[in-house]
């Protein structure tokens, strides 16, 4: 890729075919093994770039599967419906062309919300899950559930739990009002079934810039 130094625009880009690489010692390394004999027993390579702190939801959304076109037995298209996979077609002049990148999964945004509580209640919640304990009157109707907020309110309680769950599931439980931060009243049953709950360290601060963002505290990194 070539950039214009004045505008930072990309002015050129491309790929270079490198069938062989050289080690520091000078010995060659086969960079396209699937095109050579001796690899028929491997149906493909699945590449992942995730780690414990940076993994997408659903798990495997980062996967890229490169099928071995010469494998026996070969990988069948869409056999591993996770992440993405290359579809190859043979070229007349030899070799293969990538004709499509098949996308299998759709990213799920995860909301990271906070629940302020006591030490004793936190122990119970982590052991057996939440119970509905708060009520809110809204438009003449009472709602019950568990309070969650976009900020860690250590000024209210000594302990904060971090509740992580798919954003789509919590969206409908957001409460109206102007408290200076966004709040949700989520049924305990929904949290217990779908959320992961961990203790949030006192010294940590929620992700900056989350306030006012429709995807509050959610993971957006790839």
């Amino acid at each position, binding site marked *: 890729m070539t*950039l214009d130094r004045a505008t930072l625009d990309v002015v050129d880009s491309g790929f270079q075919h*490198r069938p062989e690489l050289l080690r520091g010692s000078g010995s060659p390394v086969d960079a396209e093994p699937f095109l050579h004999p001796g690899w028929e027993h491997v*149906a493909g390579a699945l590449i992942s770039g995730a780690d414990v*702190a*940076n993994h997408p939801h*659903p798990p*495997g959304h980062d996967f890229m599967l490169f099928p071995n076109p010469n494998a026996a037995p070969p990988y069948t298209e869409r056999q591993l*419906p996770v992440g993405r996979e290359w579809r190859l077609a043979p070229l007349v002049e030899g070799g293969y062309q990538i004709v499509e990148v098949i996308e299998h999964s759709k990213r799920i945004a995860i909301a990271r919300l906070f629940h302020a509580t006591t030490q004793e209640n936190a122990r119970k919640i982590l052991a057996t899950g939440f119970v509905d304990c708060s009520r809110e009157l809204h438009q003449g109707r009472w709602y019950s559930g568990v309070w969650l907020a976009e900020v860690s309110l250590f000024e209210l309680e000594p302990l904060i739990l971090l509740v*992580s769950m798919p954003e789509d599931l919590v969206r409908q439980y957001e409460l109206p009002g102007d408290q200076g931060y966004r709040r949700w009243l989520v049924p305990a049953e929904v949290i217990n079934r779908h959320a992961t709950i961990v203790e949030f360290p006192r010294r940590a601060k929620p992700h900056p810039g989350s306030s006012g963002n429709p995807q509050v505290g959610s993971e957006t990194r790839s």
Partner: protein
Amino acid sequence: MRNLFAVDDPNADAAYKDIRAPKGEGAAVARANCDDLWRDFAPYASEHFRVEFRRHFHQRWFEMYLAVALLRAGLTIECPPKGAPDVRVQHRDGRVLWLEGIAPTGGDESTSDRVVQPRATPGESSVAYYVPRDQIAIRICGALREKAARLMAYRQRGVIGPEHQAVVAINVRGIPDAALRGRTFRACCNLRTGATVHDA
């Protein structure tokens, strides 16, 4: 289900220790991610998994991540004990596909082609540097070759049947700069000043 982080092991991997008792938001989120995966993976984990998870954190984490990704895609899996690839996928039509996972690193000092991430000198501004694309590709090819040989051995021993498929799953996160999703460079000069920047 037993807690994945129940044991306070003084010999544990640093990442395990950080995530077991999170001191920052990143570690708390990582803990939540782990607990989320463990909820599905626990029934498939071998009896030694939790010990190995403490000692070889990233490698075992990837094994768990791979298995859960396949499970949540609706596949039927098994995670056999030692002596077989990491995951066996049983398709409804009777086909079997095996996955053997590996999480290579940048290599140690004895490796001439090791990949090292330059660090800025304390007190100085960050530096730009060439990403060693060839060395990264060599590390990935090496991992693929190592596991292809392992799969061949499994086939020769009859663990993987002749009609079974086998895939190598490579997690490249442990190789510095390998997970840039094709953007395989950081910069070759300072774009603001135009100053040439060399590898640190």
